[in-house]
């Protein structure tokens, strides 16, 4: 019987406004990690923070958000902190180091949301690349790094770079991967993880534009249903520089194993700051045996149609 408890945090506008320094953000992160471990019991548990949590840290690290908006918005509309000339890769290091320090104290896997990751060209100072990246941290180590593979329109305008592949790691007998933010709308990302045998997908999200649950359902909810894994989605609600983001935190499972056949194990519904659920892998396998999408794949069709792998 394989079970694990997971906790998904949802940042609210109000809560984000209280993060006036990196310290206040990190205190809040540790508060939720402690909560998650208590809920999960020692030795078994995962906590997921919303996308852009690290980006917010990086923004706070540069000084006050208001000052930053004033000085940088003309260079990089959208996210002032996301700028190769001013974004110091040490900020990414500071953020991750602090999360790693927290993780030393707790027997829990931490997905700290996402951050801007700078890749420096070793030969020249120019041509640095910025990626939107997330990771999983356990026992003070980064066990998986995942860069976003597809970019939203606003991210393309920012000039972000794309990751190369999606990966998974087996941690504590669970195969875990990350589908980061925009990638929830590109089904090939989730499909590849599913075919690699992923059990749990961690999905930090934050959507731009008007709040619309239909949009969010068209992302990770339906990826869960067409791939039959568990997914822990964690939403960012509030400002990030000049961008307004939104998203609900939801813990997903195949319909056949959820009460009401709705695919939700838990959701915040804009009423809670976090949700907890127990994932039962035997139940998931039972649900799969009743509706197994992946055994019906028709790879000959996809190869004949020349799907993917085209231009470069």
């Amino acid at each position: 019987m394989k079970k694990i408890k997971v906790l998904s945090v949802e940042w609210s506008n109000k809560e984000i406004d209280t993060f006036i320094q990196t310290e206040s953000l990190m205190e809040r992160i540790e508060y939720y990690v402690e909560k998650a471990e208590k809920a999960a019991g020692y030795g078994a548990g995962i906590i997921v923070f919303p996308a852009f949590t690290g980006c917010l840290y990086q923004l706070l690290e540069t000084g006050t958000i208001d000052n930053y908006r004033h000085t940088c918005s003309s260079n990089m509309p959208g996210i002032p902190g996301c700028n190769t000339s001013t974004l110091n890769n040490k900020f990414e290091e500071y953020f991750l180091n602090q999360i790693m320090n927290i993780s030393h104290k707790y027997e829990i896997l931490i997905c700290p949301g996402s951050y801007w990751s700078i890749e420096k060209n070793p030969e020249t100072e120019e041509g640095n690349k910025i990626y939107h990246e997330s990771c999983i941290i356990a026992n003070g180590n980064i066990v998986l790094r995942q860069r976003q593979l597809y970019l939203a329109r606003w991210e393309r305008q920012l000039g972000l770079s794309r990751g190369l592949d999606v990966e998974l790691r087996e941690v504590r007998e669970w195969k875990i991967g990350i589908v980061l933010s925009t990638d929830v709308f590109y089904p090939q990302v989730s499909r590849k993880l599913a075919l690699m045998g992923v059990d749990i997908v961690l999905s930090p999200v934050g959507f731009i534009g008007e709040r619309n649950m239909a949009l969010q359902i068209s992302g990770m909810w339906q990826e869960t249903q067409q791939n039959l894994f568990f997914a822990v989605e964690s939403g960012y609600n509030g400002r990030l520089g000049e961008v307004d983001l939104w998203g609900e935190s939801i813990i997903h499972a195949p319909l056949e194993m959820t009460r009401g056949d709705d695919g939700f194990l838990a959701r915040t519904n804009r009423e809670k700051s976090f949700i907890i659920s127990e994932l039962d892998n035997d139940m998931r396998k039972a649900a799969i045996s009743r509706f197994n999408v992946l055994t019906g794949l028709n790879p000959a069709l996809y190869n004949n149609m020349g799907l993917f792998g085209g231009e470069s």
Partner: protein
Amino acid sequence: MEIFIEKWFSKKLSLKRIGKYLRLVDSQIGEQADYRFMREEEFNSNAVIVACVQREIKLVNSVEKYIDMLHGFVKQASREKCNLIVFPEYNFFDLFGLIPGFRHLNNFINKSAKKQTDLNNHNNTVANDNNNNTVSKILEGSGGATLEMYKNSHSSNNSDNNSFLAMIFRSIAIPIETGIKRIFSYLAKKYGIYIYTGSYVLKEGRDIYNAGFLFDPDGNCIGTQRKTHLVEFEKQVGFKRDCKLEVFPFNPKGCSLSRLKIAIPVCMDATYFETFAAARKEGADIVAIPIANMEEYNPWRALRGIWPRVQESYVYGLKASLNGWIAGMHFTGKAGIFAPIGITPEKNGVMAIAPHYEGNYLITASLDMEELHKERERAEYHGDRNYEFERKFLNIYKFINNT
């Protein structure tokens, strides 16, 4: 037995008999309703008006009654100035009524099945709280959805195929195909409308497929698409799946946009994002899906098909649905017309949807093709490419294919 049933259906669906009845229909429609002329006069825009049929299975004892049923929907669509009408999957179940004694047997089986369904619904409610543990115990140790599982499922033999049903389907396939093509060709030409027939059994040699046909307003069959992803029932019966998805020209008169294309995959095909990705790759703007869902209705289950596919692929999606009882099987489902969230009135991805999952409805919507193309250009979460990842992704399909 197979030969007897085939001969019986050939007689009941003879082209002579169908032709005779269509001439009668023709005289009833009369000269006063020149629908083709009306259409050319009234359309000159970016919009295409489409209709999806939701209908209840009703066994018929003659092909004439079946023609009346089809004609009723086409006539209604024409009155609503539609350019295209889409019929559901297994659009021929009604014709089982032609089999001697089937109606009585069907009533008996359905009655028993309905009782069982009511009982199951009651037990499910009572057992809901303990359901999770029970399911877990019963199926403990079953495999996961991995490559290994895929390999195992495809290496098993088909000894449990239902040979009797396969025999029935093979027997009736050719007479029904010949007959319905004649009927739909007539209706398409008479009303100057594109018709997607819904799906029928297509027999090619000893192989049978679940396939549908597309007729243009001149009455020509311009497309045949076989189902590419089968449900378990179809695998057991012995259906073959197709390994190609085609798109077909769709140029309604009066529509200012030319070179539109439509894809017509079948039911379960909409569970797979790859189907719609293939349709888009071939240039489709509209994907029509006929369904016949053999399950009790649940809106979340219904949401696993065409709706998310439309959101991923940025096409218009048309769903026609068959419902009702036959041979103890219960079919449910709402017909619907879907579009990317950003261009739907309620911002929920729905252009039109039937009010209930059982019964007869014809739902229609006007699709602005230019607006769809603009939406693709401005969409926040659509249209990006990552060629390096996609090449790696392709390898996993190759791996499965060779497994």
